[in-house]
C-alpha cells in the first residue's frame, strides 16, 4: 500500500494475503472478511485461536492470520473446549459448516452450548455438503435437489431440516445466538454486528455464542451467484428466519461495544 492511498476499508490484518480456494460467488469469503474485521476491531488478533473444521472451509487456518488448530469432522467444539480450558484468556472461535456442525458434530455443539463454553461459533448454513460435491445436509430444505436427493428431499425418506439456532435456544448455556444472511449490503452489515456481538459475549465471559450465516452455494445449488442470493432471500429465510434469539449482554443492559478488549 502506498502512503498516499488511504483505504476506507483496508485489508484486514486478521486475514492472510493468499488466494482463497472458494468457488466464485460463494459467500465464505464474505464471512471470513467479516470475522477478520471484527478480530481487528476488537484488537484481539494475537490472542485469537481459530478452529478450522471439515468442509469447504477446511483450509480456514490458511486464511485467518491467527493461531489455528484444524479439527476432525464435527469435533470443532470439543477441540475449542480443550483450548479454551487451557487458555481462558484466549479468544477462540470455530468455523463450521452445516454438515460439520449439524450432522456429524451435533453432539459436540449441543454439549458445548449446554456447558456454556466461553467461545464463539461461526456457523455457515448453505443447506448442502459443499466439499464432498453437493450431497444432502441436515439443513437441506424439503424438496431441495442434491446429489443424494436427486428427486428432491422428501420427509418420508429423510425427515425435516434442523433449525440449529432454535434448537440451541432451548438451553441455558448460550450467551448469544443469532441467524443472519449474507445476501444484501444491509444484511451483511447486520451479520457483522452479530459476529461482533458473538465475540464481545466471549470477551465478557457470558458464555457460548453462535452466529448462523445463511450462505450461498451456487455451485451445488446449480444457480448463478445472483440466483443463489435470491434463493436465500426468497426461499431459505422463510424456513430459517433471521433473528437474534439470545443476547445476554443486552439483557444485562450492555450496549454494543461494551465487550471490547
Amino acid at each position, binding site marked *: 500500500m502506498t502512503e498516499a492511498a488511504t483505504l476506507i476499508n483496508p485489508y484486514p490484518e486478521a486475514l492472510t494475503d493468499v488466494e482463497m480456494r472458494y468457488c466464485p460467488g460463494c459467500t465464505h469469503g464474505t464471512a471470513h472478511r467479516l470475522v477478520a474485521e471484527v478480530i481487528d476491531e476488537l484488537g484481539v488478533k494475537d490472542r485469537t485461536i481459530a478452529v478450522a473444521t471439515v468442509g469447504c472451509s477446511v483450509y480456514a487456518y490458511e486464511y485467518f492470520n*491467527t493461531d489455528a*488448530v*484444524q479439527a476432525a469432522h464435527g*469435533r470443532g467444539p*470439543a*477441540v475449542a*473446549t480443550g483450548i479454551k*480450558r487451557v487458555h481462558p484468556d484466549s479468544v477462540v472461535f470455530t468455523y463450521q459448516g452445516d454438515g460439520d456442525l449439524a450432522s456429524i458434530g451435533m453432539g*459436540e455443539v449441543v454439549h458445548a452450548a449446554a456447558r456454556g463454553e466461553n467461545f464463539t461459533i461461526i456457523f455457515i448454513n448453505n443447506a448442502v455438503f459443499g466439499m464432498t460435491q453437493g450431497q444432502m445436509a441436515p439443513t437441506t430444505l424439503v424438496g431441495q435437489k442434491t446429489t443424494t436427493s436427486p428427486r428432491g428431499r422428501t420427509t418420508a425418506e429423510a425427515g425435516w431440516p434442523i433449525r440449529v439456532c432454535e434448537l440451541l435456544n432451548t438451553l441455558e448455556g448460550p450467551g448469544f445466538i443469532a441467524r443472519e444472511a449474507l445476501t444484501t449490503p444491509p444484511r451483511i452489515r447486520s451479520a457483522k454486528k452479530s459476529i461482533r456481538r458473538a465475540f464481545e459475549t466471549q470477551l465478557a465471559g457470558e458464555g457460548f455464542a453462535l452466529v448462523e450465516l445463511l450462505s450461498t452455494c451456487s455451485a451445488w445449488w446449480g444457480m448463478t451467484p445472483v440466483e443463489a442470493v435470491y434463493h436465500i432471500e426468497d426461499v431459505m429465510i422463510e424456513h430459517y428466519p433471521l433473528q437474534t434469539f439470545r443476547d445476554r449482554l443486552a439483557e444485562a443492559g450492555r450496549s454494543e461495544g461494551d465487550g471490547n478488549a
Partner: protein
Amino acid sequence: MSEERRRAFISGNEATAEGGIAGGCRHFFGYPITPQNKIPEYMSEHLPLIGGVYLQAESEVAAINMVYGASAAGARVMTTSSSPGIALMQEGLSYMLGAELPAVLVNMVRGGPGLGNIAVAQSDYWLATRGAGHGDGRCITLTPYSVQELHDFTARAFEIADRYQNITMVLADAILASMMEPCELIPRREMDPPDRPYAVGPHDSAERERNIVNSLWVDFDVMEAVNLRNEERYARAAAEITDWDEFGSDDPQILLCAYGISARICESAVMRAEEAGVRMRLLRPKTVFPFPTQPIREWAERVDAVLVVELSMGQFVEDVRLAVEGRCPVDLLGRAGGNMPSVTDVVNRVREVATKAGVSVG
C-alpha cells in the same frame, strides 16, 4: 525418582490418577466407563484443588478431541477409558498422531468384543500396538503389572509423550484397575510447562510467527514426511525406552512370555519350577510398543520352547512369534471373557509344551 515417597494402600485406578498428577497432568477430560471410574472421580476431586481442570466430556469422542485441543494449547493432558471407549477414541488418536501431539491415554481393558463385560481381559493388545485409528501412526505403549507400576508408568508417560511428541498409552486391565496394593507415591511438585514451541495460545506476534496445529497434508511429500518423522520417533523410542523384566532360571528350558496381570500368574508358576520339573524363566515386557524383540530372540536361541500366556485368543503372541522367527516352538495359553488360567494351569501347560519339545520333564 529419588524423592521421599509416601506409602499408601490404594487401588490401581487411584494410583494411576495420582501418577498422572505426579507426572504433571493438570488437565483431564474423560467419560465414565467401568472399570476405570475411580480415575475421573479422583481427578474431579483433586485437580480443581491444585489449579487444574477436570471436565466430564459428553462422550469418549469428545473427550479425546478436548485432549487434542488442550495438547495443542500446550497442556500436559490425559484421558482414561476402557475398551469400548478406547475404540471410540481411535479417530481423535489418529488426528493427534497426524498433528504430532503428545498426550497420555490409559486403557483399563475389559472383556470383548461388543459391550462384552467388565471383567479382566488383555484383548486390546492389537488396538494399542497396531493403532491408533487409520493411517500409520502408533501409540507408545507401557504395560504395568502392579499398582506401583501403574502409578510410576503413568507419571513417566507424560515425559515420554513429550520426548517423542507422541501419544503414550498405559495398557492395563480390570483387575489391575480395581485391586489394592501398597504403593509408594511420587511427591506432587510444580513443573515448568512442557517445551512446545508449536503450541497455540496468546502471544506477541512481533515475537513469533502464528502457530498452526494441523493433520491435513495434501502434498504427497509433506504427508510422507510426517510418516517418516513418526517412524524416526519409533526407532528412537525402540533404542531408548524399550523395557522388560526377567525372572527365574538362568538356564531355562521353557521361556514364559506374558505382560501385565498374566505376568503375575506366570511369576507364581516360575516359583513352582522345581515341582514342575522344568526349568523356567519369565520375560515380561514393560513396553510392548516398542517391543523387546531382542531379548526374546536371544532366549529363543537357548530354550526348547516359548509359552505365551495372555488373556486373549492370541494377540501378544504374534509379536513374540515375530521376535522368535522360528528359532523354537511358540505355544499359547489364552483365556478370554474374564476367565484366567490358574497357576496350576500354567504349570501344567509348561510341562506339556516341554514334553512336546523333547524336554525330559522331571
